[in-house]
């Protein structure tokens, strides 16, 4: 359903993504792993229109994303949990979550959706009135994920959702990702925690300096010697 073909992206003179092709099918968890600076974030940013592509194509559900306004992409059912959280620091936790539902025409389910998020993240319920800017890093990460869920996405792009989270929460996050898939949501997951990512993903791509160097079933990659050496630290 999400299909990327020969995508190239550059920042001025820097080529960050150099012709990658990949696809994510309905209901899959696809993981994208790679070293720092490999171009993972850039790829996600290009998908949701935050960064313009130089060439190539991205289609989602039959829509040409490169021709879709960035702000319309979320209405196609694609949410993005950005790297570095990007919560609205001077809004309360609850307001942040409500912003997540901005794109929905029908705002009546707001209360129920909030409860769902608070179910995932009880901590946020405690802090629902606190300004998001004063939350700890991990708490902010929860806000960012919760906010994405509020838009009733069919697909979620997640950029290092476990970064800075306690081990318990990391498990929690991965559990949530699994739950999301069970509920029929497609996930494209960028992770440094490659071991965890590969263990829950169906398929995975390995990105190295802007190029896809490996792809396949996640369980295969998990046992691949090269992958183990480069990304799993063993």
């Amino acid at each position, binding site marked *: 359903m999400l299909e990327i073909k020969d995508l190239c992206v550059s920042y001025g003179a820097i080529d960050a993504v150099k012709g990658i092709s990949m696809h994510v099918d309905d209901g899959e968890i696809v993981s994208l792993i790679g070293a720092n600076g490999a171009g993972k974030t850039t790829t996600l940013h290009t998908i*949701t229109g935050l960064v313009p592509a130089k060439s190539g194509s991205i289609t989602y559900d039959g829509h040409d994303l490169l021709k879709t306004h960035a*702000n319309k*992409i979320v209405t196609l059912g694609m949410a993005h949990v*950005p790297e570095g959280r*990007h*919560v*609205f620091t*001077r*809004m309360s936790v609850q307001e942040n979550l409500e912003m997540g539902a901005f794109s929905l025409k029908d705002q009546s389910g707001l209360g129920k959706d909030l409860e769902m998020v608070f179910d995932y993240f009880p901590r946020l319920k405690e802090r629902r009135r606190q300004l998001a800017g004063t939350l700890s890093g991990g708490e902010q990460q929860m806000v960012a994920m919760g906010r994405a869920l509020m*838009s009733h996405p069919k697909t979620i792009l997640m950029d290092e959702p476990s970064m800075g989270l306690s081990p318990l929460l990391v498990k929690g996050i991965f559990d949530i990702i699994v739950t999301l898939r069970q509920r029929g949501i497609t996930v494209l997951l960028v992770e440094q925690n490659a071991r965890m990512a590969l263990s829950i993903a169906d398929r995975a791509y390995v990105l190295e300096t802007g190029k896809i160097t490996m792809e396949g079933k996640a369980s295969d990659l998990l046992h691949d010697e090269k992958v183990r050496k480069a990304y799993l630290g063993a």
Partner: protein
Amino acid sequence: MDQIIMFVSQLFNGLKIGSVYALVALGYTMVYGIIRLINFAHGDFIMVGAYVLMLTIPAIVAMGLPAWVAVIPAVLVCVAVGVIVEKAAYKPVREKGNSMTALITAIAMSLLLENGSQAVFGADFQTVPTIFHLPSIAFGKLKLPGDTLLTIVIGLVIMAGLQLFVKFTRQGKAMRAVSEDKEAAVLMGINVNSTIALTFAIGSGLAAVASLMYCAAYPQVSPMMGAMLGLKAFVAAVLGGIGSIPGAMIGGLAIGLIESLTKAYIGTITGGIITSAFSDAIVFAILIIVLLVKPSGIMGKNEGEKV
């Protein structure tokens, strides 16, 4: 007794100009709130509005309508000017430059509007026909001018309206989101450019309303009229806490009151050492003191960055 009447009327003098400052400050705050830009041209939007009033009031009165109806063309023109300035100058600079570049662009736009209107209308002052014919309300010896009261009421209504708009409407929430984090706002499905344009439209529309109230109190236009007014109103916005809607209102009224009271009493208090000629300096001194005590202004939220 006379002293008290004098004092109360000084308060009202302060509120009269203060409520105009407040209206102008609201426009500054809206724009600053969303793109962190001191829109130096905002004072000049008021000038544009005032020229529209000057030109249209005679026709409107001739049509048998009340003079204040001229605010409608003024709003239309100001909104157009505001949105054009934003699209033509601020947007390209915002996308490529930094905050300093944007500031210089705003200053340049201000120069452009001032000199442009001088080229069109000439540098000389022109009077605006009377806009309101409101009676003063008298309490014994105390006379409170009707248009001052009207300006204050309009200011409060607009402030409340804006506050509600920003807090509760969809567009208002979009504005807040854009003001905090444009990238995240896009991901929420917000059209950042149209939100910013909308903010400019509102800010400029407010400038037109402000020019109506200003011209009611000070019925004269000239190409440079916006410069000092804009500066004072900007100071008001900062004093109140820039970005804060009630702050703009409070700041505006506060500056008006400070000006009026220092003009009236500073000479007596200091035994003539400091005279009313220092009123501008005192306004700034108070601003400085407030900022040193509360760096984000009276109503401003402390953006204390978490380390």
